[in-house]
Structures are given as structure tokens and as C-alpha cells.
């Protein structure tokens, strides 16, 4: 099954983006996200879709490591949280405009991830995964002790912060559209990587790292690059998300629950597929909404996501897209 996908990538690597049907499917999804809640000024729908954009951004970028390279990154939430901190800090302490602050957050977190990635690139397999568990704990402990960022109390933004965007009401819409943009870029990034030579190298690492090394894939450099790349957009999303709530503290920013959810989403939708990350995020959000509203389950959200993850890993390791590909092989040509 896996060899098929690899062959397909080799075959159609030269087709330019706009000539591919999947390019337009992504464009359609973005357009739907941007227009549907805006049509009736539907704030409730916007809030639930906003969460979906965050989920899709996190899952889609996690997929670069987990899906393509076959490396678990348990600490993907570090990017989101650090991006949030850097964004909020630059805005509150140095009065940076929103766009500049978020871009700076994205670049800074990516560079940090690259440095860290180059540091641990010699670690392979389970050791790499364990290092990523540690980084979450370590970064949270560091931020909790770091006084310029408010320590464990966190940072607040004054309500006047929304004034340049035309008041709180309009600002929430602006943030939503920006998040939709970040989600769209995440999907295109995942797709562009998948059909590139770089993506081919990552998939080769995912299947057999020794064989990939022998065939000349610079595995350590590719892993570090993928790790750093998967940090950029989640950091921006984190910056926007915490700008919206105008408040950030370590326990929210480095909520391990969110990186767990991102993993569940990737596995649910189908590891290594762009569509899977998006559909998985949507399905998971529906499920989560249902769990939160039903009284008996709201306390057991972690239990349910854990049980779901276990069932997927045990019985449908290919996720939803794996199942669809098996059922209707032709969909492979259209849905990446």
C-alpha cells in the first residue's frame, strides 16, 4: 500500500500545482471556511469553526513529522504555546503591530525548533520521541519561571489592544479570517511537501531509515528541517489564538491535551494524508462538541480520546483515509 503512494508521488511530481484537482479542493475548503459564517454574521458557527482551524493547523503540521517521517512529536504543542507567548509578549511589552508580532513568533519558534532539531538529530526512533516529551515539560517549567513572561501567572493584554483592528467585534472576525488563512497555508504546505522530493525523502525515512540513509537521503537534516517547518504555522496560530483571548498562562499554552488531540486527529483521519488531517479534525471537533454537551462525558474527555486513539492504533492503523483508499482505490488519484 505504501509503495503505491510513493510511486504515485514520483510519477506526478512534475505536474504544476494549479493543474492538480487537489489544489482546488483545498481552495474550496478555505473559501467555505471564510464565507459560510460570514454570510449570516453567524458568531456561534464562527467560534466552532475557529477551533476547527486551530485543530487542522496543528494536525496538518504534526502530520509532517508523524505522518510523513514516521516520527512521533509528543511536544507539538510547544510550538503553539511558545508562538502564543512570543506574540503576546511583543504586542503587550513592545507595542508591535499584530502582523509583525505573529510573523516574528513564527520565525523565532521555527529557528528554535531548527536549533533543537539539529541538536537531537542524531537520536533515532523512540529516543527522538522521548526527547520531544521532555521538551514540553522543560519548556513549560522554563516559562513558569521566566519573569518577563509573567511566570506562572501569565500575561494579560489590555482590552484596548483590539482598537487598531476596529474594536473587539470586528477584531474577532479579523482574527478568524487570519486563522483560516493559516489553516489554508498549513494544508498547502502539507500538500507541497508531500509531492516534493523532500517529502519523498521523509516518507522513505518513515518506511526504513537505514535504507533511506543508504540511498542517500540526508535523514538527520531532513528530520530537523521537517521538525522546524512544522513549527512555523502552529506558532502563528498560537499567537493569534492567544491574542484573541488576550491572556496567556503556561498551563493553557502548553496544554498537553491539545497535542494529544492533534495526534488523535492525525491517526483518525489517516497518517500521512492531507485530507485525513482535515477530515479528522472536523470529525474530532464534532465528537468533542457532543462529549462536552453530554453531562456524563464532559469529565471523561481525556479517557474518550485515549480510548479512541487505542482503538485506531489497534484496529485501523491507516485511519479513515486508509479505509477509504482500500475501499475505493480510485480516490487515491484525487484525495492526497
Amino acid at each position, binding site marked *: 500500500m505504501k509503495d503505491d503512494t510513493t510511486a504515485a508521488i514520483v510519477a506526478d511530481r512534475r505536474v504544476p500545482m494549479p493543474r492538480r484537482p487537489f489544489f482546488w479542493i483545498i481552495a474550496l475548503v478555505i473559501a467555505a471556511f471564510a464565507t459560510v459564517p460570514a454570510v449570516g454574521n453567524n458568531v456561534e458557527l464562527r467560534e466552532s469553526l475557529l477551533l476547527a482551524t486551530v485543530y487542522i493547523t496543528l494536525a496538518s503540521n504534526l502530520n509532517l513529522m508523524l505522518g510523513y517521517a*514516521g516520527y*512521533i512529536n509528543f511536544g507539538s504543542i510547544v510550538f503553539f504555546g511558545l508562538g502564543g507567548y512570543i506574540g503576546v509578549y511583543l504586542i503587550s511589552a513592545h507595542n508591535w503591530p499584530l502582523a509583525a508580532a505573529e510573523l516574528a513568533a513564527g520565525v523565532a519558534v521555527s529557528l528554535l525548533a531548527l536549533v533543537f532539531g539539529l541538536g537531537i538529530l542524531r537520536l533515532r526512533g523512540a529516543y527522538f520521541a522521548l526527547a520531544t516529551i*521532555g521538551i514540553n515539560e522543560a519548556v513549560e*517549567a522554563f516559562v513558569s519561571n521566566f519573569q518577563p513572561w509573567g511566570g506562572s501567572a501569565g500575561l494579560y493584554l489590555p482590552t484596548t489592544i483590539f482598537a487598531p483592528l476596529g474594536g473587539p467585534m470586528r477584531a474577532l472576525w479579523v482574527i478568524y479570517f487570519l486563522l483560516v488563512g493559516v489553516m489554508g497555508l498549513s494544508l498547502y504546505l502539507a500538500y507541497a511537501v508531500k509531492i516534493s522530493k523532500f517529502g519523498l525523502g521523509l516518507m522513505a525515512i518513515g518506511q526504513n531509515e537505514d535504507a533511506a540513509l543508504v540511498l542517500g537521503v540526508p535523514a538527520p537534516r531532513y528530520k530537523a528541517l521537517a521538525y522546524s517547518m512544522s513549527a512555523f504555522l502552529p506558532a502563528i496560530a498560537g499567537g493569534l489564538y492567544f491574542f484573541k483571548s488576550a491572556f496567556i498562562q503556561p498551563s493553557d499554552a502548553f496544554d498537553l491535551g491539545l497535542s494529544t488531540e492533534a495526534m488523535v486527529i492525525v491517526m483518525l483521519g489517516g497518517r500521512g494524508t492531507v485530507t485525513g488531517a482535515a477530515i479528522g479534525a472536523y470529525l474530532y471537533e464534532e465528537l468533542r462538541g457532543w462529549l462536552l454537551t453530554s453531562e456524563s462525558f464532559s*469529565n471523561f474527555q481525556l*479517557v474518550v480520546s485515549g*480510548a479512541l486513539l487505542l482503538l485506531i*492504533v*489497534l484496529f485501523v*492503523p491507516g485511519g479513515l483515509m486508509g479505509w477509504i483508499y482500500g475501499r475505493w482505490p480510485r480516490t487515491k488519484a484525487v484525495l492526497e
Partner: protein
Amino acid sequence: MLGIVAAIIDGVLIGSVYGLAAMGLTLIWGVMNVVNLTHGAAIVAGMFALYLLTAAIGLPPYATLPVILVGGFLVGVALYWIAVHRMVDRAHLMSLLSTFAVNLVVIGLGTAVLGTGLFNVPVTLPSVTWQRYTFSGTHILAAALTALIAGLLYLFLYRTRPGKAVRAVANNREAAELCGIPTTRVLSFAFGLGVALAGAAGMLIATMFPFTVLSGDAYQLKSFVVTALGGLGNPAGALLGGVALGLIEGFAAQVMPVSWTLVIEFVLFVAVLLLFPRGVFALRRA
């Protein structure tokens, strides 16, 4: 000067318990090449087993140790069949995900039922006073019990047939299978043993420090550090690694706030993995 000696002694006492926890992790890792991410949950389960058995049934604290060892073993064997058996020969990714999922379920249930508040089991033991310093009795007894369990584990692994079977499977599973060792049963046995050790370590830690449902992550990270220090699948190395970690923690606590401990441990973990990929205390294989 004497303060340092006292810190060293206490570091050795506490560190030996970290070593016991790591033995559970390294045993499973070494035997079936699976990183058990339910390790933290098993440690926490041991802590709460102590709390519930003493508070609800009224067992004396140290009488819970055999109960926890046996219970942990049975739970571990069950876990092996539920979450690990199908993953043993697959990519690391899958066993990491499946044990991580079980960890979520256990911690989620614990949080929903017990909350995330601080728990404390009052254990009264006479303490030992040496010059101006006092060593708490719980720390001394925890270290002594750790030494006892580690000794029994050593006798089991090196002097009994089932123990030799475990080592044979760790060494080369296919060859062991060809020699007539029922490898699947050995794997489930080893997993049970690993979880039992983690539970016992949790119980001993709970006699010394207060704990919450979420304490498992921190102790799991400590176990990873100890495993990195001691080398994979090496119980004696785990004990040495644990003592080393206890000493490092003790010294770090003198120089900087306790809340930095996790950062230091993590840096240590990565540094050791990069500099000594086979463990600082790894025995040379003949």
C-alpha cells in the same frame, strides 16, 4: 561541609527509589523493545494504591507493598495483552501510540474520579539523627526496600530458569523461541514485572512525598533520564543511574529553585543520549 555529606546521603536514598522505577521501564524496553508510556500511570497507580489501601481498608503502609507488587503484575499482564501484544514487532511509532493512549485513559479516569488535588499519606517512622542532621525514616526504609527488591530481581534474573528465559528473550527472541522458550508468555510476564516494579516505586515515593494524579509525568521523565544514564535493559545500571540522578537533584536544589529541576533533568537526558548513547554506566558486553 557536613551539609554536603547530608545532601549526598539523602540523594542516594531517594535516587535508589528512582532507580527502582526505572528498572521497570528498562526491563520492558530491553526485553521487547517497547517504550512503555504507561510507566508514569503505573507509578501513580502505585501511589494511589497506597493511599486507598491505607485510608479505606486500614492496612499499615508497608503491608501494601506485596499487594501492590502482585496487583501491578496482574494489571501489567492484562495491559500486555490489550495494548502491547499486537505492537511488539511493529514500528516504534505504534507501540508508543498505544501505550500513550492507555496512559491517557488511566490518567483521565484518575482525574475525573480523584481530581488533581494534592494527596498525602502520613507515615510515621522514627528518624535517624546524625550530628546536626536528621534523616527521615521513610527515606531510609524506602532505600532499604528498594535494595531488597533489586536484590530479589537480580536473583530471579540470574539464578532461576524463568529469569534466564527473560534474559534469553531480551538477547534474541527468535533464538529463544527455537530453544523452546514460550516467548509470548515471557513477554507478557516481563511486562507484568515491569509494571509491578513501577507500582512499587510509586508506593515508596508516596511514603516520602505528597503526590497528585498528574505526578506520573515527572517521574516518568526521571525514569527516562535514569534509563539514559544507566543504559538500556540493565537493572544494575538503572540503580546506579537512579542514585546519580538523586545526587544531581540534591545538588541542584542547593543552587537553584526546585521548579527548575525538570529543565535540568531534560537537558541532562538529551545530553546523555547524545554523548553516551549506550548509557554512562552501561556494562561492556563481553
